């Protein structure tokens, strides 16, 4: 297993390091500018976002004891989408493009993600709440947020609709180092807190009630993971849109590769998620020469068949 961990780590690090060099040649001053100010911060963004989404996905799958759980399951991405659409549609109406010096879309998306996730985390913090109730609450809130989002899209004009669709497909915007610096504190807090809960999450594998009898405060762990996960995912989604599949599929790849022990699986999800998104983003730049696909399209295109293959392989 140690060899597999090493190989996956080296592969992910190699993909991250190589990603900025793929694409048009980087000759001269303009090439250097593109490398330093566009591609490197974009890869850094991919590392932060991919690592966070995958780590949070792995933690959610543990607390819900459900292999289909992901940041989208508990309404985080639906809340962010609603917030972003409110900003896209209502921003011009109220004459705002920024909030506190930040882009209005990112600010509203972050707020939306947190509001929805904290509502679900508050439900999860109740001692007598069953795990399926939390999942149902997350799905119900996601559906409600999706309905309002659809209503907003219906009432939007063409330009707003294009902006909304572009945002919901997920992309790693060329926001330079500013975007990286903006999400870094949230992402770091998310990584540190979630990885510090590894022991509890490992104990939770034996079932909620058994873990309770072994001394774990299950409602507290659930709400910490949901709350802190929402903080990290909310920050990522606010800047990059809801990038599909990554929080679902990377934990499965890692589990198959290095086993289900959370001591290995959680940090490895972070590392592999970073490498996976950096790879997908590079492909999104290269697949159609001269045009960029939204990275969410690439993660879905790779993720969906990979997930089907993994499920079939697991059954065998």
């Amino acid at each position: 297993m140690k060899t597999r961990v090493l190989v996956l780590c080296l592969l992910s690090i190699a993909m991250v390091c190589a990603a900025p060099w793929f694409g048009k040649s980087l000759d001269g001053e303009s090439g250097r500018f593109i490398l330093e100010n566009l591609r490197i911060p974009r890869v850094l963004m991919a590392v932060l976002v991919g690592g966070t989404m995958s780590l949070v996905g792995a933690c959610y799958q543990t607390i819900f004891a459900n292999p289909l759980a992901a940041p989208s399951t508990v309404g985080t991405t639906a809340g962010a989408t609603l917030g972003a659409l409110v900003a896209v549609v209502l921003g011009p109406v109220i004459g705002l493009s920024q909030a506190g010096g930040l882009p209005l879309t990112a600010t509203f998306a972050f707020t939306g993600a947190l509001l929805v996730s904290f509502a679900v985390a508050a439900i999860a913090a109740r001692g007598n709440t069953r795990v399926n109730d939390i999942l149902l609450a997350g799905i119900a809130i996601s559906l409600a947020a999706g309905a309002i989002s659809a209503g907003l899209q219906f009432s939007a004009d063409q330009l707003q609709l294009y902006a909304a669709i572009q945002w919901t497909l997920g992309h790693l915007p060329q926001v330079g180092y500013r975007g990286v610096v903006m999400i870094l504190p949230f992402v770091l807090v998310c990584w540190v807190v979630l990885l510090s809960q590894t022991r509890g999450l490992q104990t939770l594998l034996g079932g909620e009630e058994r873990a309770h009898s072994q001394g774990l405060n299950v409602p507290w762990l659930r709400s910490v993971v949901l709350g802190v996960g929402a903080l990290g995912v909310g920050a990522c989604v606010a800047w990059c849109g809801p990038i599909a599949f990554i929080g679902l599929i990377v934990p499965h790849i890692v589990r198959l590769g290095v086993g289900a022990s959370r001591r290995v699986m959680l940090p490895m999800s972070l590392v592999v998620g970073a490498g996976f998104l950096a790879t997908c983003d590079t492909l999104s730049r290269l697949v159609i020469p001269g045009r960029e696909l939204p990275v969410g399209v690439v993660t879905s295109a790779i993720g969906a068949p990979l997930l089907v293959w993994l499920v079939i392989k697991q059954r065998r």
Partner: protein
Amino acid sequence: MSSSLQMIGVSVHAREKALLNDVSLRLNEGEFVALLGPNGAGKTTLLRAALGLTKAGGRVLLDDQPVKSLSGADRAAKVAWLPQHSHIAEPITVLEQITAARFRFSESHRDAETGALRALESADAAQFKDRRITELSGGEQQRVAVAGLIAQESPLLLLDEPANHLDPNQQIELYRLIGRLWREGRGVLCITHDVNMLRYVGSDAPIRVIGLSNGRLQFECEYASTELPSHVGALFNVGMEVLDSAGGRLLMPAAHGSTDAERTQA
């Protein structure tokens, strides 16, 4: 100070139905209490109430402190629980599982692993340490589950039908292991359907047998008591035959026409 679990007038209701009705019992460190009862009697509910897993009226005290007022680590330091179904779907190794069972300790991973290995050796399960829990047979899984209890190092053990679904040989092995934990000084509260299994616990110290039906305590006596067969017969509503064997007394359900209703008819 030796540990004790005390339940005083405990009641549990689900909607209108009383799952437990004014139940009082005490388990001290070093004692063995067997809890008998038909399906749906409230036996599992009683253990869940003892752990604070279900909302219950009355008082549940661990070392004279309300169980609800204890932190998770403090509660786990006093009492460990083996649920009826302890299934782990994730393919982690046995050593990883038992290491995780030591959650209550503030210790390094290396120390936790050392403690887990000690527990596995104590349960004669060290040979499974690198195998995935999902690859073990039912008997091996239960042995590993008992190693998890040992790893928790709690003086009181609550066991919910630990030998369920095991073949006779595995049942005997498991009860011998539980008996060893008792003789080492732990207090054991063990739910069982088969009172005869208690002969394999193997100690001269008295075993208390408690009968529970319809959420109420029906009887309490010693395992060696001559009244036990009639109590057990009334509890399960079946006539009991007592057979003397080399290993001790055996209680067997009578073959024909022996329920209360049938006896009344006769």
